[in-house]
């Protein structure tokens, strides 16, 4: 969006520098569908910001426009006080965006991919090599440094993708579902890296569906639904004394009481409506033709764990200072949807 397209009534000042990202009146339509509808949001510098919302709420669309990958129809976005779309490449160099798994050059080895990601940002090769080594070590990928990324597991791919977004030490990190399909150990390590990055003044913006995770990690949260911000602020402010997930369901709506699908009966007794095709269809392959035998209800499906070895006392994963709850961040101003 160029400067000239900004409407006359828009104030000249584009978001104070205390905001890492400032979005005003952002709109985007795909054909008839309005994905983002007059969305305004300020994201404070140094915050760990969670963007939550149901599927199709406009989270990814908003993030794509903020990171310069999708042209807005209308509205302004500034990053660290600079308009994104007036010099989109400059804005991109100050941020790090985690690519999706399918958006990596996955025929490169992990090491090559990181060096590439650094050099693409104008970094000298020698520096990129050093940083790649550090990142591989930090993400427990040193052993996989010379393996092609296409042969990585989903969790490893996520980690290398995150590393590509961090190699140039950006001031803001944009992560779309960063913990999806990452195992608990890697996820805890990832979290440490991100929290430490925040401590040093970086801003992390994640989108997620997992409320528990957002509640645990984020300092701030914005609930997005139908292309607009329904609530934004610190996690405590948005939760307003409730559980964040309950609050989210209140704000977003769409919960209906105990939906009953008459024909979905798990193969138990026939509901008498003549619809339940308990018998396998003749088109099914032979191995499905026999009704599968599940464990008898009286038999436990899983054997209880035998305490063969004494259980190790749990190691504290994070620094004690950050336990048990996320400390509040007084240095950070509360986020709120910008007022007109």
């Amino acid at each position, binding site marked *: 969006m160029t400067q000239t397209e900004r409407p006359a009534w828009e104030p000249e000042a584009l978001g104070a520098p205390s905001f890492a990202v400032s979005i005003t009146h952002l709109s985007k339509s795909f054909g008839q569908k309005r994905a983002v509808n007059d969305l305004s949001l300020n994201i404070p510098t140094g915050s760990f910001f969670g963007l939550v919302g149901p599927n199709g709420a406009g989270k990814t669309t908003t993030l794509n426009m903020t*990171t310069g990958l999708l042209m807005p129809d209308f509205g302004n976005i500034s990053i660290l006080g600079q308009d994104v779309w007036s010099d989109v490449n400059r804005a991109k160099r100050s941020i790090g*965006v985690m690519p999706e798994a399918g958006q990596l*050059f996955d025929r490169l*080895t992990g*090491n*090559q991919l990181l060096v590439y990601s650094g*050099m693409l940002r104008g970094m000298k*090769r020698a520096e990129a090599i050093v940083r790649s080594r550090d990142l591989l070590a930090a993400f427990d990928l040193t052993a996989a440094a010379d393996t092609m990324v296409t042969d990585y597991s989903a969790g490893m791919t996520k980690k290398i993708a995150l590393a590509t977004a961090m190699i140039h030490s950006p001031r803001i990190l944009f992560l779309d579902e960063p913990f999806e399909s990452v195992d608990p150990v890697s996820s805890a390590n990832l979290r440490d890296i991100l929290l430490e990055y925040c401590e040093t003044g970086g801003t992390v913006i994640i989108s997620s569906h997992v409320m528990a995770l957002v509640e645990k990690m984020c300092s701030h949260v914005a609930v997005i639904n139908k292309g607009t911000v329904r609530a934004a602020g610190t996690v405590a402010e948005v939760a307003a004394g409730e559980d964040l997930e309950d609050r989210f369901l209140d704000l977003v709506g769409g919960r209906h009481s105990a939906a009953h699908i008459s024909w979905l009966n798990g193969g138990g007794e026939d509901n008498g409506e003549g619809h339940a095709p308990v018998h396998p269809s003749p*088109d099914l392959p032979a191995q*499905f033709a026999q009704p599968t035998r599940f464990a008898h209800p009286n038999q436990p499906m899983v054997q209880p764990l035998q305490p063969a070895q004494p259980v190790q006392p749990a190691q504290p994963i994070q620094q004690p200072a950050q336990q048990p709850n996320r400390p509040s961040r007084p240095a950070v101003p509360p986020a709120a949807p910008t007022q007109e």
Partner: protein
Amino acid sequence: MATALRIMSLRWALTMAALKKSAWQTIGYVIGLLCALACVAGASIAFYFLGTVPNLLPVPFTDQLTMGAEIVRIVMVLLGSIVGILWTIMPLTLSGDGSALEPRRFALYGITDRSLTSGIILSALFGVPALAALLSLLIGVSAYRQLGAATMVTAVFSAFIAVILFVTVSKALIALAGTLIRSKRGQMILYVSVFALFFVALQVPSQMLASGGDGESSSGGLEWVLAFPVLSAVATWCSWTPWGAAFQLPFDVAQGEYGIFVAHLAICCVTIALAYVVSLWCLRRDRLQGADSKVTTAKGLSWFSRVPDSISGAVSGRLAQYWQRDGRFAMGLILPVLLTIIFAIRARQNPVAMWTAPVTIGLIYPLFESNNLAYDGRAFVMHAVAGVKGSADRWGRARVAVAISVFFIVVTSLIAVFMAGGFTQGVEPIMTLTTAMGGSLGLAFAGIGLAEVLSVVLMYPVPSIDKPFSSPQGRAVSQGFFPFFQMIGSVILILPTAAVLVAALLTGSTVLLWLVGLVGLVNGIGFLILGVYLGGKIMDRRTPKIIETLDNFASLQK
């Protein structure tokens, strides 16, 4: 069978949906349809006139067939076999599997392998190419109109058999390649062997003709008369292959050779059955065994340590690495080598012919560059999020394309010089070398410059990197269409050099001839720089649109 029919209707629903979504797809599709109609019309007319031949030459040839009827037989069987070979083998190397029905997508529905295979074959049978071929052959029954009603009825029957056979065999071969050939080395071997086979097949008729008219160097009617028994023998030989058998059926009836008719029919049926079983086996193997889980490792930075330490250098390094690891680029490396070999064989008698090799490579090579972003696929987002300037991206890619084309052109040019006797004959070989090499390099550079612009504007879907033999929907139609712009454009851009060459040849001026190489280089480098600059500018502006397009392509590949 009901499932198979439903799969077939799904295929058309997918096509319609793709058309609804994009104007380009629709245009491409309409052009494809027009081409198909033109083919049908052309074939129909040709077959009609072929049908008049038996009357023109009522001379008896064998006991049952006249000379004219034998000509019809030779044409039908030979042409049918050539089309059949093209149809069944070429998809392996060039166009890939044209259908959007990836069996893996049906994995969750518990459809039997048998229904799924039948469905996929059926949907290919009701695709545009198969229908066009069937229509041509059915109208083409007029070619048999002087050979009796029974022959014509058999021809209708054989038209169906031939189309079904080609479709099933083509599907089976693609499935087999996709299932068995997972490594890039395997792909290379397949490409080379298919091309070698193809090349030999193309050489056979001309070699036969040459031996048929032996001693008689003068061309003309006499040679053809002498060649006639040879062609007749070749046709008979072809009729015993799966590609020619179906086309022989009407003539077996015309000759009253019902035993041989049954034998030919058996060849067709066995081939179809075998192809079906092979498709089924591949499907089952893919479903049960899944993909190979071979982990590839490579030490160090490889290409990244050999490129300039800059953004464009990084792009070059990545691309060079992909040329090495990406199976889809294999053809780009093999084709120049094969072209060189083919031209070298053809140039044994006349060494000047070898000079067509560098020129052809200069013309064809930029084609591989003209759709470079589509080969990146969604990974292009990495460039976008890094804020890579369009000019750096374009220059990084152009560098690799220039390096590869320079290598091939210089090598083929030197081969041409040595085939003509090396540098021993004074200044003339050097002049030919500079002229041809300079001109070819100019052609390649100008083409690459054009490609750097076209690849940002006119993208078309490519196979996914994991399945180089499959092709996304809508590709076959639009692909025959966009590279055309690249070829024509290259030729137009090199016109200044061509003008100097023509002037040199007309005036016989050696000075002008010496100049051709220089003008070619300047011409090419000029357009290369312009292309990189313009392509970069357009790319900067179009990045969001490019990402959207590449996302669409990715959804076609799944």
